[in-house]
């Protein structure tokens, strides 16, 4: 093609040539063109001259020459003689247009250029459809237009075609490059290898391609060999040097790094203007904290960059350098520029997000930037990590990219970091998912070789994978999550491991003093949860000795003492907390809770004052969710007291409104606050909207059930059951109470037992109700309400037995009637006891007033008399029946004997007949055998009969004894009361069982007439409150009335690392929150241990959050 220094133009029709020195090409290519045209030179000379200009970077001349060469007249002249050259010229001219279009920012001129190129190329193609060049040109054009698929098509075609009739690997190489760019390294490698096979003397950069493919496919050894081979062929190939350098740098060893840097500098020496190289050097400087050098190198690289994409990278590097130099403005400028140059480059988004955070601008912008970055590089750990922290501050945004986090984790089943990150992110929104992620991270953590024990091992096999360091943070946070899930023992073991890891000095990050204290606190907290309260107390006090400002320790100590029932000591700790924290909302909350836990209800006013004035009344605390809920509960509970008093409706409705407003506010702040939801349900129930309330409680319970133990809200279950009871779904209600007793109350809550008894009573399961009440009394023997209700149930049972329709001669009659008498006696004894309590100690000791008690006593008494009469009747009947039975039995016996005799006679006859044939002795023996058998049977029957009699006698004796005792007990039988009036019958419950007020619903179901006829009976325990005090029954209702409970605990508002301490702290001590519920007058001794644990957990979460804070930069 090109001679050394001259291009020789053969003079037409002569042997002469004109030598044109390359160094002296005319500035105006037209001169050349004239000569070329005049001498009618071979077309290839046109190409030679064009390239000569190109080689001298005289682009305009080059372009002009090409333009001349592609003009119609020239083309026509050479038609048939220089098709290939024509194509060459067309393609090269097209290429200049493509290049220009790339550089063009104006959209319309860009399109124009593309159109021109396309035009030229299609002309070229038409000249020869099988020419490779035009395909390659078209491919490049497609690439420039971002039409990857089109480019691929063209390049594939090019790979098949020949160039100027000769095989040429250019097409294959283009296709390989395309695959390479698409990160399809395996495909690219295959093509490069194919090119090498077809053309073993190919230019060295084919080997370079192979090297980079291997590099990207993670085969450093093969890559290294290929790089070296490239360098052998082309000692100045800086790319190969760069490749080797990167390989060395990546080796992870110190030696490797040094060698890498050395190689880079070597390459720099030979090719100081390679932008790749400069960028790499810049990156190296960045890593080594030579930020200024890095900046300069990056800037230089950006200048030299061959494409926007590359330039973007360089500018981005420059930005990072500025960033590191703490020049936020310059950094931002660079990032923005880089982002413009290449919108797909993720790092600038990331950098901008960081800058944004640095300048404390909105999280939103940062989140958006990071999300964009992640669209480009899904699963990018660094970005995910920052995003994760941001999400934990704005959990409402998290949902969008959560899937990405999960995918990233699923994609990296062996990356502990990714799982840990996912776990931290899910902590707020999906605790079970978070726990799962922690478990996975721990699994990986345990499977990984630890630095301490694996160092020699790793060196041995030259494995470059870094061993994992002890990670107290992971252990701590996993412990916290386990604790939230209620796995206290596991959590305790983990936190102990975390403390050990932190102490070993080989931790992944330097464990700060503050996180060590936090772990100490967590440890104490878990000791507490595991029931080792004594040890926890000691631990808290030890922490306080060292850090007297650790307010949470004071608060936990206050709670511990409060739960032990030592309120004065608890208050003392709370005061210390208040002093140490300058009246922090948490400390105030604890103080309020302690007042609420007091049996002395006058203390509740103090609680109310704290909640209203010091918490909600202060601007900075006005959103305190605990205060909102606790105060709401307080209002609601004061309603349940006044509901029984006429004339308090106004006050009640005011209280409803206030409570509702508080719950709503809490819910507005945190839509996931189930405690507030529960509270709203309770208000609805109190106002009589039972169906709605039932739905709400049901939903709360569902959420709770779906949380896999992370969210336990026993009160919602109790309320659900109460609502069912109020709706007269007795059986399901009883079932709900039972399961909730088992699950949440260790079967020991006399309050829930009382409700259960009520449900069983209403479901006509009197004996079950009796047993349930006994269990309740066994838990709280001092609770007179329970005993009173037991008396009512026994009275009712007695009455029902007496009233039971019996068929004549019912064999159980006497036993049952006797039992009924016993029940009535017991009931009477208990009522008597209540009366004596009332007389002796005053009103507060007994749940009913004198009148009602008297009515009960009278009723028991009279019913007992009736029972006595009935028992006597039954005895007589029994005796008569006994006689009849005895007679019948006698008759039966006689009949049997007669039958036996008959049989015997028959057999005798038969025997007689046989006698004739057989020997007399044998016959006689057989007969005797049968006779003996018959005698034995008779004897057995007689014995059985005797035994039956004996048991009867026994029973009779007992019965007499009891009757005597009962007679002695009842002093004044009142014969006035007629059995007919005591029909316990079918009065319906009128929904009073539940939180509903009477009168609101079920009108007409309890007609006044029916009720009136029951007045004074005291039997039912089921009558309406509107009835006069004459019936004790009304009180029974009250006593058994399950109150809808509200629980002051708030649903956890997304814990997580946050600088908004207030937000996290406020749910520290819902311990107390559970207390307002105990407002039910009979239940102050009830404890709410479950919820307290929850509260503690909230505190725990808070600690976890702090810990994360302290660890994350």
């Amino acid at each position: 093609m090109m001679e050394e220094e001259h291009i020789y133009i053969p003079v037409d029709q002569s042997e002469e040539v004109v030598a044109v020195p390359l160094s002296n090409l005319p500035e105006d290519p037209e001169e050349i063109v004239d000569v070329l045209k005049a001498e009618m030179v071979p077309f290839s000379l046109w190409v030679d001259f064009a390239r000569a200009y190109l080689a001298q970077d005289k682009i305009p001349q080059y372009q002009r020459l090409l333009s001349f060469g592609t003009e119609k007249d020239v083309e026509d002249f050479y038609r048939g003689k220089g098709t290939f050259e024509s194509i060459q010229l067309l393609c090269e001219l097209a290429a200049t247009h493509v290049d220009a279009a790339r550089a063009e920012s104006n959209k319309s001129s860009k399109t124009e250029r593309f159109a021109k190129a396309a035009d030229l190329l299609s002309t070229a193609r038409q000249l020869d459809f099988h020419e490779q060049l035009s395909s390659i040109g078209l491919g490049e054009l497609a690439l420039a237009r971002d039409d990857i698929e089109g480019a691929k098509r063209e390049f594939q075609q090019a790979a098949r075609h020949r160039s100027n009739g000769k095989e040429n690997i250019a097409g294959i190489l283009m296709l390989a490059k395309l695959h390479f760019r698409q990160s399809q390294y395996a495909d690219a490698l295959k093509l490069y290898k194919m090119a090498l096979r077809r053309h073993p003397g190919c230019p060295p950069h084919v080997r370079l391609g192979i090297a980079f493919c291997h590099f990207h496919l993670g085969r450093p050894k093969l890559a290294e060999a290929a790089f070296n081979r490239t360098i052998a062929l082309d000692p100045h190939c800086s790319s190969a040097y760069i490749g080797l350098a990167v390989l060395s740098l990546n080796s992870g060893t110190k030696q490797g790094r040094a060698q890498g840097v050395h190689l880079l500098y070597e390459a720099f020496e030979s090719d100081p203007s390679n932008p790749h190289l400069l960028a790499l050097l810049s990156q190296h400087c960045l890593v080594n904290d030579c930020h200024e050098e890095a900046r300069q190198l990056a800037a230089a690289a950006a200048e030299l960059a061959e494409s926007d994409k590359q330039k973007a990278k360089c500018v981005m590097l420059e930005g990072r350098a500025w960033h590191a130099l703490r020049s936020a403005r310059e950094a931002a400028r660079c990032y923005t520029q880089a982002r413009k140059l290449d919108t797909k480059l993720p790092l600038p988004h990331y950098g901008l997000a960081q800058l944004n955070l640095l300048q404390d601008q909105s999280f939103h912008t940062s989140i958006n930037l990071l999300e964009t970055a992640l669209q480009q590089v899904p699963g990018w750990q660094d970005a995910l990590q920052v995003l994760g922290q941001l999400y934990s501050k704005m959990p409402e945004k998290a949902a969008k990219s959560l899937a990405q986090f999960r995918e990233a984790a699923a994609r990296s089943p062996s990356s502990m970091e990714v799982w840990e990150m996912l776990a931290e992110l899910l902590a707020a929104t999906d605790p079970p998912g978070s726990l799962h992620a922690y478990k996975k991270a721990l699994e990986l953590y345990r499977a990984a070789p630890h630095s301490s024990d694996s160092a020699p091992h790793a060196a041995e096999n030259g494995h470059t994978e870094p061993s994992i360091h002890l990670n107290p943070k992971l252990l701590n946070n996993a412990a916290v999550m386990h604790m939230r899930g209620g796995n206290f023992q596991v959590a305790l073991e983990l936190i102990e491991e975390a403390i050990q890891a932190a102490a070993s000095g080989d931790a992944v990050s330097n464990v700060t003093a503050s996180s060590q204290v936090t772990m100490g606190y967590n440890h104490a907290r878990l000791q507490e949860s595991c029931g080792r309260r004594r040890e926890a107390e000691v631990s808290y006090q030890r922490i306080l000795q060292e850090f007297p400002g650790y307010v949470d320790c004071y608060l936990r100590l206050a709670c511990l003492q409060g739960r032990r029932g030592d309120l004065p000591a608890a208050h003392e700790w709370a005061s210390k907390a208040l002093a140490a924290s300058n009246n922090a909302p948490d400390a105030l909350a604890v103080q309020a809770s302690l007042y609420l836990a007091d049996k002395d209800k006058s203390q509740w006013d103090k609680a109310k004052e704290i909640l209203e004035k010091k918490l909600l009344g202060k601007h900075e605390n006005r959103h305190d969710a605990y205060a909102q809920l606790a105060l709401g509960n307080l209002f609601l509970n004061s309603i349940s007291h006044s509901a029984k008093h006429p004339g308090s409706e106004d006050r009640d409705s005011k209280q409803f409104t206030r409570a509702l407003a508080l719950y709503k506010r809490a819910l507005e702040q945190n839509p996931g606050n189930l405690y507030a939801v529960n509270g709203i349900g309770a208000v609805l129930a109190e106002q009589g909207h039972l169906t709605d309330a039932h739905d709400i409680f049901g939903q709360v319970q569902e959420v709770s059930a779906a949380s896999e133990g992370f969210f336990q809200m026993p009160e919602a279950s109790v309320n659900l059951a109460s609502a069912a009871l109020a709706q007269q779904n007795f059986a399901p209600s009883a079932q709900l109470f039972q399961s909730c007793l088992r699950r949440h109350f260790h079967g020991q809550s006399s309050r829930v037992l009382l409700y259960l008894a009520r449900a069983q009573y209403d479901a006509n399961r009197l004996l079950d109700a009796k047993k349930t009440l006994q269990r309740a009394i066994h838990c709280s023997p001092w609770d007179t309400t329970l005993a009173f209700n037991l008396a009512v149930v026994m009275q009712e049972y007695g009455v029902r037995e007496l009233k039971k329709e019996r068929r004549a001669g019912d064999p159980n009659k006497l036993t049952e009637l006797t039992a009924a008498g016993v029940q009535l006696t017991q009931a009477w004894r208990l009522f008597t006891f209540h009366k004596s309590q009332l007389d002796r100690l005053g009103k507060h000791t007994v749940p009913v007033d004198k009148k009602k008690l008297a009515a009960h006593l009278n009723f028991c008494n009279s019913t007992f008399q009736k029972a006595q009469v009935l028992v006597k009747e039954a005895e007589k009947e029994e005796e008569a029946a006994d006689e009849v039975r005895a007679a019948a039995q006698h008759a039966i016996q006689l009949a049997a004997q007669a039958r036996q005799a008959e049989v015997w006679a028959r057999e005798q006859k038969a025997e007689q007949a046989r006698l004739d044939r057989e020997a007399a002795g044998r016959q006689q023996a057989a007969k005797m055998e049968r006779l003996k058998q018959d005698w034995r049977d008779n004897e057995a029957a007689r014995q059985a009969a005797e035994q039956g009699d004996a048991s009867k006698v026994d029973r009779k004796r007992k019965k007499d004894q009891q009757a005597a005792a009962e007679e002695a007990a009842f002093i004044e039988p009142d014969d006035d009361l007629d059995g007919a009036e005591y029909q316990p019958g079918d009065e319906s419950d009128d929904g009073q069982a539940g939180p509903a007020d009477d009168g609101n619903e079920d009108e007409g179901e309890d007609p006044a007439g029916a009720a009136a006829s029951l007045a004074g009976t005291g039997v039912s325990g089921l009558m309406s409150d509107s009835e006069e005090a004459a019936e004790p029954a009304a009180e029974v209702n009250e006593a058994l009335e399950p109150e809808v409970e509200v629980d002051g605990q708030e649903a956890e508002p997304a814990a997580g690392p946050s600088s908004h301490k207030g937000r996290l702290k406020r749910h520290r001590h819902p311990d107390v929150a559970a207390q307002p519920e105990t407002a039910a007058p009979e239940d102050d001794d009830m404890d709410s241990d479950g919820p307290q644990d929850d509260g503690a957990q909230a505190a725990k979460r808070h600690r976890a959050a702090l810990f994360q804070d302290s660890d994350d930069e």
Partner: protein
Amino acid sequence: MRLSVNNKKEEAHEDCIWSAGWAPQGSGHTLFTGSVDETVKSWSEDISTADNFTGHTLGVVSIALHPSGTWAGSSALDSFIRVWDITDLSLRAQIETPPSETWQIAFQPNSAEPVVAAAGGSSNKITLWGTSTNDGEELRSYRLPVGEDKHKRDKFVMSVAYSPDGKLIACGTQVGTVAIFDVEAGQLVSVLDGHYKPVRDLTFTPDSTMLLTACDDMHTHLYDVKQASLIEAFSGHESWVLSVSCHPSGNAFATGSSDAKVKLWNLSTRSLEQTATEHSDQVWGVAFRPDGQQLASVSDDKSVVLYSFSD
């Protein structure tokens, strides 16, 4: 030291079992259990079969065994105390007390005739009942001092225990008061501080110098009787501690709790030795056999479990 399950009887009663006690040595190793099913059962040594004592009309709250091995006592929610002759299952006395004025009972250790001390519930005292007549007779009472706090309800006296030497009697109340009286003189000797919630069970150590308590505050306290001071608070149960029994050697004690667990504690090292999880519901009673070789536990889950004890 260790407990290993030796024998377990499911459905030992028809309903929740609330109390357990062993007849003293010499009369065989007979375990007595009382249930909400209104019966007291005395079990064969392998707890395969049982004799029934019936008569209570409500759940049996407490069982006591007289040191002579002749008498068993039971109290129930019907507020009757019944004293039985173990040898022929006959009833010796049936003492009717006012409702809610009897809870746990204990036999006076060194009396020839059975004398029953009853934690007096709402009566704010311990009452001693003689059993020379069928109805029993009130012999004397140990009255608790009345608290200054007006708002406090009556202290419901829940638990009662004699010191093995018979000189002292202690009781525990609903509000956590633990009081010790001189049996003979009838005086209040000391009030032990530290509990604020119901003390449902208490027992002296065999040498009568220390007292163990089981409290709803989830702790078991060990008190020095003479000094009237708290020696140690044992925590570990996750709910109320319902029952406590001291090993006759004085080296160990066991507790039963609402958390359905039985725990074995070492009194010498003052530490938890073991947690047994045989039960699925509240463990209302634990009792070491007088020879110390076995422990029995009873529960709301209706089962009885026997454990072998080894040092």
